[in-house]
């Protein structure tokens, strides 16, 4: 079986604080893989360790391996920009580039990375990405308008389109619905279920019910340690660790 991503003995420190403690797991292809846990347990850090966005933090130190197709992203000769292009990332607070239009937000990644040859190819790419993100019909007449004009839910779908435009293998999502209203949230959850046919999705959530709703596999992270991991149905009905059970039943922070 080939894995989308393999994490092996991953350790992360912020200065002296040991944030991620010897975490190892494997994510199959074309699934939705949820990482859940109470606030501050290191979920966001874990995500950023995968696409090496953690490199931006001068106080962070990483040990261990993260492998895509057998290649360790922290290897010596690996180009970090190549690593980041393998992933698409969606953040907790929708963050489209406010000074760019809707079209430009989606087009920026492919343009700068030289993925297309001419304008018509770019137009087609932008349209496909926006369609996949279920945003095309709402914005197709307003592509030149600034991204800041969209509602929160629309902005988040725009960010998803921006991530999809790079044709990544894996989509990383850091609590994508945490700042959206319930209607917008459920639209995004529906979208995820469609997207997993073409992509592998790793979603961090602080809401166990969301994990139960959308994911195929789930990992429970507590204080930087991987407590339990398995198929969602199993983990939620017959958790093998008392901490997992507490969290799932809502009896934990």
């Amino acid at each position, binding site marked *: 079986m080939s894995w989308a991503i393999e994490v092996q003995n991953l350790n992360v420190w912020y200065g002296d604080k040991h944030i991620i403690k010897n975490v190892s797991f494997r994510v199959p292809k074309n699934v939705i893989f949820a990482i859940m846990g109470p606030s501050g347990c290191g979920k966001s850090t874990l995500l950023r360790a995968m696409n090496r966005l953690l490199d931006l933090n001068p106080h962070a130190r990483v040990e261990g391996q993260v492998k895509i197709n057998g290649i360790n992203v922290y290897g010596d000769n690996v180009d970090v920009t190549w690593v980041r292009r393998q992933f698409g*990332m969606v953040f907790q607070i929708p963050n489209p580039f406010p000074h760019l239009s809707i079209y430009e937000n989606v087009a920026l990644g492919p343009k700068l990375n030289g993925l297309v040859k001419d304008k018509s190819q770019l137009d087609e790419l932008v349209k496909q990405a926006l369609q996949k993100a279920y945003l095309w019909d709402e914005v197709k007449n307003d592509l030149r308008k600034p991204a800041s004009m969209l509602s929160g839910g629309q902005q988040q779908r725009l960010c998803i389109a921006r991530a999809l435009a790079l044709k990544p293998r894996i989509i990383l999502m850091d609590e994508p619905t945490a700042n959206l209203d319930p209607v917008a949230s459920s639209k995004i959850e529906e979208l995820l279920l469609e997207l997993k046919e073409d992509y592998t999705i790793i979603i961090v959530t602080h809401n166990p019910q969301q994990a139960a709703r959308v994911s195929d596999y789930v990992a429970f992270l507590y204080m930087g340690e991987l407590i339990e991991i398995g198929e969602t149905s199993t983990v939620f009905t017959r958790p093998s660790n008392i901490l997992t059970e507490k969290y799932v039943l809502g009896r934990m922070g």
Partner: protein
Amino acid sequence: MRLNKRKIIDRLMLGIISALAIASAIPIFAIAVNVYSEGARYISLNFLIDLPPPPVGGGGGGIGPALVGTLVLVALALAIGGSIGFFTGLYLSEFSHTRLAQYTQMFLQVMVEFPTIIVGLFAYMILVAPLKRFNALAGAIALSIVIIPYIALNVREAYKSIPYTLKEAAFSLGVSAPIAYLRILLSAARRGVLTALLIGLAKAAGETAPLLLTILGTTFTYFGGLDQPINAIPLLIYNFALSPYEKWHQVAWGAAAVLLTIILVIFIVSRLIIKEVKV
């Protein structure tokens, strides 16, 4: 204290404060009025192009060489000081945790308050003395040094105010650091950066002290080369105003009117840019 007495003191103090405040704002209006009423009458196309008049007798004359000089010096200063200032500011913002950044920022904050005559002395030592004559390059370098701290500290602010999540979004697209900082994030910070450059422009156009010891202020050649003396509008105003010739005083007022207009335009443009951000 009885309430009436307190009320009287209240009225009195508010009145005094208001009066002092208005008094402190009067000079700018007085200056603008005086400069334009004394100087605007001399401004014409000829005034902007011609050589200066002889001290006594003779025709109108103008500030041509000084205007050309200012354009040359300002362009050079912005090119040199602007680029050093910009990249220094970018470094200060994105690598603020390093020792180099901390020391550099401290030193730059001190340098903002340097008496600019000292910068002139330095430029004299490194560029005028070795060449054994006053030259335009020395003036341009002196001006560059003066504007570097302003540009660096303002560019730093501009980049620092970009939300961290935007930085993450830019890098998550898998572009290289130069492209992330100079194409994506520069666009996000462009108003602050533009303001920084406009401040540098205004300073370079208006500063006199760095030029006193470096460019000589020759009045009769338009541009002889970077290794030759040159004039500039502020220096012309200084020299002519202090001269004993009435004719040259008039030219000084006219040049002051030109300079004031340039500064006003730059000021208004930078206000308009900032206003866009607030809206």
